[in-house]
């Protein structure tokens, strides 16, 4: 172990804000990215499920988010 105390470790030899500012932002973004992907996927699956259900119950091409086509 390189450090003598926790305060020593946190201070990073006067470079604390720079080192921790790098680590915290990087960790936060690398945790946020997969969570965003998972969130997007859950939203997509729910949308598709609604769409399929609507299609089966007789509506032709229910509202499809994204772009609209005049007829199909």
């Amino acid at each position, binding site marked *: *172990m*390189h*450090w003598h105390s926790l305060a020593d*470790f946190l201070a*990073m*030899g*006067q*470079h604390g804000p*720079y*080192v921790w*500012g*790098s*680590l915290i*932002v*990087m960790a936060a*973004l*690398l945790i946020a*990215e*997969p969570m965003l*992907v*998972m969130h*997007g*996927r*859950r939203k*997509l*699956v729910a949308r*598709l*499920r609604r*769409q*399929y259900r609507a299609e089966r119950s007789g509506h032709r091409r229910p509202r499809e988010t*994204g*772009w609209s086509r005049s007829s199909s």
Partner: protein
Amino acid sequence: MSNRLINWFRFSSPQTFYPLAGRMIPWFWTLAAVFGIAGLSIGFLVAPTDAQQGEGYRIIFLHVPASWMSMFIYLVMAFWSAVGLGFNTRLSGMMASALAPTGALFTFLSLWTGALWGKPMWGTWWVWDARLTSELILLFLYVGFIALKAAIDDPRRADKAGAILALVGVVNIPIIYFSVKWWNTLHQGASVNLTRAPSMAALMLWGMLLCALACWMYSIAVALMRVRTIMLERERHTDWVRQLVEGGEADDALA
């Protein structure tokens, strides 16, 4: 056609690739965590103080892996773009789309950690030198790629346009990499060089390589997650997606 050839192309079909990717994702997350914990422990707890830069040099364990990934992901994206243009495979465009946001994220992190490293060492957050400027252009290329694809409704045409942009932009990668050699920059030279013995202490080198490996595994895991979502979206009119969604198999949270 030989059997081997058929087998290769089998995996370029989303229907085959989707479950395969799903099985691989937990492994890549595990490896990312193991390498990340090992690399950060060495880098932040064990590695010695740098003679010139004091403790501030520890940003290297974040900055170098992020910068490597920002360039490498672009090369992989350009590779898939070329494959897509050449063979017209559906999967290629999806892979390129899945990689772009992660590449943009690492490019941003490279610039962010670089600024926080530059301030205590150079006395400035930012200079318009060749290395920093070409890395900023890389961020614009990623953002341009994402925006261009989002602007075109037809996914196949979006793939093609995106692929051309990605391939033209690939010229920027050697410019970033060799900028510290070609021009007189404030940015220091390469930290690791394949042709000569590393100038850094072995512990520092190991910490950095482990962190880089963690970023690799992370990128693969998150790109596979994203490509699976893209597959569901684009193949939503097919029977296999319908079966996955209605059968509840598309609900697994991790993948």
